[in-house]
């Protein structure tokens, strides 16, 4: 803990609160991953740790290093930007893969794809009409 002793107390309390809130968010996400019932419910829980948990912990790290070193240290922003970009991409890939696996097995949990509907001139519903071109 070099440099922690000369931080002012309100700043230390702020850093500690951000750190504890971030770790708490991550822990709640982990508990949700264990306790929720179906896969499509469980997908949502870890994103709590990937968004708010990560942001609060990175914020407290930025504050701590900036004030204990005496100059601005923002390289934690790199992780924040990278994680914000990549988490939705990987989750979309995994969930679409899980959806196609469930559909292949004919599972009851997911809606099946509708069969392709031939254009019917007797029922010109505008929202189902095939696009020209």
């Amino acid at each position, binding site marked *: 803990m070099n440099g922690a002793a000369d931080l002012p107390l309100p700043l*230390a309390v702020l850093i500690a609160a951000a750190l*504890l809130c971030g770790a708490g968010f991550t822990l709640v996400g982990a508990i949700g*991953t264990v306790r929720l019932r179906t*896969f499509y419910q469980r997908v949502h829980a870890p994103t709590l740790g990937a968004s708010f948990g990560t942001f609060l*912990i990175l914020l407290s790290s930025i504050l701590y290093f900036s004030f204990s070193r005496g100059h601005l240290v923002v390289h934690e922003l790199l992780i924040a930007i990278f994680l914000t970009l990549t988490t939705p991409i990987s989750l979309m890939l*995994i969930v679409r893969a899980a959806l196609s696996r469930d559909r292949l097995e004919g599972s009851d949990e997911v809606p099946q794809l509708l069969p392709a509907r031939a254009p019917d001139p007797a029922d010109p519903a505008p929202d189902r009409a095939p696009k020209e071109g």
Partner: protein
Amino acid sequence: MSAVVLGAAILAAQLMLALAMALYMSRMLRGPRAQDRVIALDAFYVTAMLLLITLGMRTGSTHYFEAAVIIALLGFASSVALGKFLMRGEVIE
């Protein structure tokens, strides 16, 4: 005083993150299907990265930050590869 506050907070945060990693590990071992394990592994990577950042705050060095960046990069690559594998049965076709 502020060193005591920060030390206690970092210790508590590390314990909570370690507990979160243990919960993700239990989900990874229990399954029940492959996609559950992949989601748990993805979140496990993120939590390990956060644990490394708190370790860097405890020791006051920024070397752990580089390890955290590498873990985030490798976690994304492995999640994409595993998602591709779940979808098609092969990673590189």
